[in-house]
């Protein structure tokens, strides 16, 4: 009997433990809701209280000594090592005693989401500019307080091209600070160009005539002129040319999908004609078109600048901006920005000191294969010495088209035009207009639904 009672006691304890564990699990979510909603209200108060205090303090001081800034990023390639190096340098050099730890994470948005749910967010993160609105709406990012912004100084906005600075502003708050931009780059094979009797393209974008003549000359010389694949590459070329032909993906507010225009159909047809006329057959993910170029089997490939660090090791590689084939110049690109994931005033200040330093020293970041966003760095003659390929494409950054800052907008658009672009480029769809019209309809439906979800 006693033995049995002990068993019952044991089971009861076990059940209790499970119950507590289960409550811990579900409690986590309620815990999420509490800190996430209440701190925002608290913080607006704090933000209002603090300015006087911090205005008096002014800038970065010894008061921040001992602060540890943990920064996450999606920089998992060689650029991540470069960033870690910069973090170590700042930690050693800064006179305030701030330490920065850099952690590169694949699938960083998902990591941030789960960290937010578990209340385990770092101090700050590198974000792709396109994720800012979504992460802000979903209580992952915290707006920069007035005190934090004061660290950057008053004239900070004029230090950046308007397109990239404005992109960090959302719902009346500043959520992110521009670090770099990454426009498409035209990589070319110097040897094959010379063989075809062509001059190398300079840092001014080639005109449509020059571009097409070059392609034809390359074809006549018996090489594959250009490598055009599908997936990311097809979609970004389409997005560049739609703007060049005078169209756009959305209206200015990002509430209306507009890629069913004549310009859009023209852009897609143009990418397709390049592929059919001048490219070997390439398709699929994992950037196979870049491999074709690296192997010396195609004279040109147009792709993101993150391939620079690899491609510049090839003796034959040259770098130029995307050609201008339409009325006005435009190029697809993104921007890495620095955003805060904490409301803690001191943590925010410490992070701001690091951001400020990083931005001023972003000439070193150019080595990692990105175009520094800061004007004084990007336009300095030093850039050409430190990172010549970056200097070749730096002038195009003013023409980088950044989507309006609307939550989940990129997914709503790309998820629909992407498959159409692929289908056309793979020869599975011939009626371009109908395909785009159908996709715009679905995009619009998703945009409307997102608007309902996120308000606005």
């Amino acid at each position, binding site marked *: 009997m006693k033995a049995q009672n002990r068993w019952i006691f044991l089971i009861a304890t076990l059940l209790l433990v499970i119950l507590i564990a289960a409550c811990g699990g579900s409690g986590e979510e309620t815990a999420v809701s509490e800190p*996430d909603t209440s701190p925002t209200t608290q913080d607006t108060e704090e933000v209002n209280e603090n300015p006087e205090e911090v205005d008096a303090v002014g800038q970065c001081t010894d008061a921040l000594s001992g602060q540890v800034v943990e920064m996450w990023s999606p920089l998992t390639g060689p650029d991540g090592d470069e960033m870690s190096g910069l973090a170590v340098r700042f930690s050693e050099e800064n006179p305030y005693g701030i330490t920065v730890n850099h952690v590169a994470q694949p699938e960083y948005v998902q990591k941030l989401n789960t960290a937010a749910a578990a209340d385990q967010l770092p101090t700050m993160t590198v974000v792709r500019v396109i994720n800012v609105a979504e992460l802000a709406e979903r209580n992952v990012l915290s707006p920069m307080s007035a005190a934090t912004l004061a660290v950057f100084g008053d004239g900070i906005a004029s230090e950046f091209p308007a397109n990239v600075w404005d992109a960090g502003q959302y719902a009346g708050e500043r959520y992110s600070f521009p670090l770099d931009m990454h426009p498409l780059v035209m990589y070319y094979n110097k040897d094959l160009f010379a063989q075809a009797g062509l001059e190398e393209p300079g840092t001014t974008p080639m005109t449509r005539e020059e571009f097409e003549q070059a392609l034809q000359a390359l074809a006549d010389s018996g090489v594959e002129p250009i490598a055009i694949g599908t*997936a990311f590459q097809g979609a970004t070329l389409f997005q560049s040319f739609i703007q060049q032909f005078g169209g756009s993906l959305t209206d200015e507010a990002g509430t209306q999908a507009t890629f069913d225009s004549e310009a859009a159909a023209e852009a897609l047809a143009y990418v397709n004609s390049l592929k059919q006329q001048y490219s070997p057959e390439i398709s699929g993910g994992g950037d196979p078109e870049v491999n074709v170029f690296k192997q010396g089997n195609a004279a040109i490939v147009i792709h993101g600048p993150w391939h620079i660090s690899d491609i510049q090791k090839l003796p034959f590689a040259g770098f130029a901006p995307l050609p201008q084939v339409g009325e006005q110049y435009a190029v697809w690109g993104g921007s890495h920005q620095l955003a805060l994931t904490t409301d803690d005033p001191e943590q925010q200040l410490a992070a701001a000191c690091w951001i400020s330093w990083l931005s001023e020293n972003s000439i070193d970041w150019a080595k990692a294969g990105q175009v520094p966003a800061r004007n004084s760095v990007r336009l300095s003659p030093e850039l050409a010495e430190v990172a010549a390929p970056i200097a070749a494409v730096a002038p195009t950054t003013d023409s980088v088209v950044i989507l309006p800052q609307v939550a989940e907008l990129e997914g709503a658009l790309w998820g629909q035009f992407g498959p159409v672009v692929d289908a056309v480029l793979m020869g599975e769809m011939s009626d371009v207009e109908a395909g785009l019209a159908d996709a715009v309809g679905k995009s619009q*439906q998703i945009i409307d639904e997102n608007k309902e979800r996120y308000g606005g």
Partner: protein
Amino acid sequence: MTEIAKSQPEDSRIPGAVQRWQRFNMTPYLFILPHLIFFSAFLAWPFAYGLYISLFEFDFLRPEYRPFVGLENYLNLFNRGSIQFDDFWRAMGNTGEFLLWSVPPLVILALLLAVLLNGRFRGRTIFRTIYFAPYALSVTVAAVLWWWIFQSQGGLINHYLEQLGWPTPNWLSSMPEAWIAITIATIWWTIGFNTVIFLAALQEIPSSLYEAAAIDGAGPSQQFWYVTIPMLRPVLVFVITITLIASANLFGQPFLMTGGGPLQQTETVIYRIYIEGILRNQMGSASAMSIFMAAILITLTALNFKLFGQNTQR
């Protein structure tokens, strides 16, 4: 067991509330308790919570916006005009196609392998280990490995095909090559599991049955069809069932090898659920898809047992 159960109440037929406990035999419940704990924590509770979530528009990071939508998430799956309809049913079709590609080889090849490995020959333990080894890998390792083998620019297979002067297809971005690649990767990765189950069942078959069949003049193939297959029937049903379920849950291989392409033709239901729930932050809708999928799998399993499990001795 039954005797003990009968005798116990007689011994303890003393009036009183406490004694009632003694009539209630704790032992079997204690035995299932360890499993029950994990089952409740990791299956029953998440399933119930999923059911609950599926009735809301649910984003776990936005507790401030979580409207109750009733059955709308389910109805969207059947409403031609909804955002989810096309993508979901394309994914269902793709998953069905993969079942046709993968289940027959995974069952038949596993059975043949098991019969081979059941034979008496030198080093059979080593071979058993070798065939089972890939199963110990994670899906990531298996899928990335096969991506390198199949990828079209400098991949192993195309490298050899090129040397032989044969055509080199874009394995991962054309149809049906993408399914073939995914199926081969899946077979290589998981066939060891089915094989081991078949092997265990084969060893259970009494050798006297084979002897009897041999005396009656049955050759090896007749022994296989008239002794092995009937004796394996319950295990066969079990293996078909778990293979169906495993294949219907295909995600890692297309996610890592094809990205759902070409043209979303290898985008499976689980892949779609991932996009809906994780990338589009629509946990409610994603849960509804999961529950619907679970219902289909339960039906398939029940049908499978009903159709093929009849007349079993066990």
